[in-house]
């Protein structure tokens, strides 16, 4: 069974390391916050200027002066700090944020990512994505393995305008966990009940497969 969005988030949450700062992008990445493993202390950074982001507010407690990068109303936790956009991107560019999780339209086998622009369509802009992918030591992409037409988003080379080069370290999709290695995508895990062949068929890029590929633990 392919994973749903919540399960992708759940699998990514297993990558979280104790005592680290994490920036979650819009969409599936946001859901990762719901699955932090026990004993793992994490602080979430949002690039519009908050560290120590908490859950959504209770109804009636929404504050227009307290939002995340997706413009959603949020809360802060004990130990939170607020700051301006230059300081926020100083944290990101200066590699103080250890992990960035974000969505993508395409990822290529050398770790390029395309997630901001489709030529001919309305372009909304890159927001903070270009700063994030150019900076973080560890970048995990959360996305569906194929697009709505069934075409692979895991490619030899990106076809869309790219957001950053050589930056993605891991990709977690509804079908598989892939690591970006010097030789290309290595298939680390498959979704429960999804065969290696099914993943191969859904992948344009070459997959490196070593021995038995275990199922994800979801």
């Amino acid at each position, binding site marked *: 069974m392919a994973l749903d969005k919540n399960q992708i988030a759940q699998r990514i949450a297993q990558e979280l390391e104790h005592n680290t700062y994490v920036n979650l992008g819009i969409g599936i990445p946001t859901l990762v916050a719901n699955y932090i493993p026990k004993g793992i202390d994490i602080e979430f950074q*949002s690039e519009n200027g908050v560290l120590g982001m908490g859950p959504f507010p209770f*109804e009636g407690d929404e504050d227009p*002066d307290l939002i995340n990068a997706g413009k959603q109303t949020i809360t802060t936790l004990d130990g939170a700090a607020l700051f*301006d*956009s230059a300081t926020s991107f100083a944290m990101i560019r200066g590699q103080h944020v250890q992990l960035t999780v974000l969505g993508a339209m395409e990822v290529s086998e050398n770790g390029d990512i395309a997630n901001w622009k489709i030529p001919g369509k309305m372009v909304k802009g890159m927001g903070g994505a270009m700063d994030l992918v150019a900076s973080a030591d560890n970048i995990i992409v959360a996305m569906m393995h194929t697009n709505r037409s069934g075409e692979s988003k895991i490619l030899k080379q990106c076809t869309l*305008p790219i957001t950053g080069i050589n930056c993605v370290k891991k990709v977690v999709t509804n079908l598989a966990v892939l690591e970006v290695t010097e030789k290309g995508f290595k298939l680390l895990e498959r979704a429960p009940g999804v065969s290696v062949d099914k993943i191969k068929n859904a992948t344009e890029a070459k997959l490196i497969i070593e021995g038995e590929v275990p199922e994800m633990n979801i």
Partner: protein
Amino acid sequence: MVKKIVENVEHALKGVESNMTFMFGGFGLSGIPENAIVSLSKKEIFGLTCISNNAGVDDFGLGLLLKRKQVKKMISSYVGENAEFERQMLSGELEVDLIPQGSLAERCRAAGAGIPAFFTPAGYGTEVAKGKEVRKYNGKPHILETALTADFAFVKAWKGDTAGNLIFKGTARNFNPLMAMAGRITVAEVEELVPAGELDPNQIHTPGIFVQRIFQGNKYEKRIEQRTVRTKK
């Protein structure tokens, strides 16, 4: 003490003209200079270049200037939620320069800090880097970005004093302190204006030296774009 207080938004906008470059603080609709924007949208000034992280929505924020076609060019990082913006952009009426959010923030700060240019890794290898100098530091390629200035910067704070000192609230701080630094004339509007001496000098976010004019806004709508809540257990 250098006094910055002006009577109202009209006095604060003295000198704005067509074809000028304006900066607007705010992220989405949070922390935008609502009163300045509404007043600007009623003036006969056109051909504006607007530097702002976002472009408002159709009937609020910078959407008001876009609707009256006062804007010639937008310099932003994310211009999502605005149908009229989309129409003008796709029809070619509106020039749009999209730049990474962190570079936008740093380029404003740089202008205010007398740093004409700096290297950043953001955008290397992408179309953002076109025509820009590339240099490797610590084995990693960086591109050279230049400072962004403006004839006027419009910012919004929570509290301010008559010396122009500003305190922001929550994430409504965002680009406001950086654009305050960058504006040749910086106009600050605040929810609450107090006499100098009432704010703790240790808690000022933007020192008054970066602000040329300050006034208390008439009212603040403070719209929420994505109201998200959880239910009480």
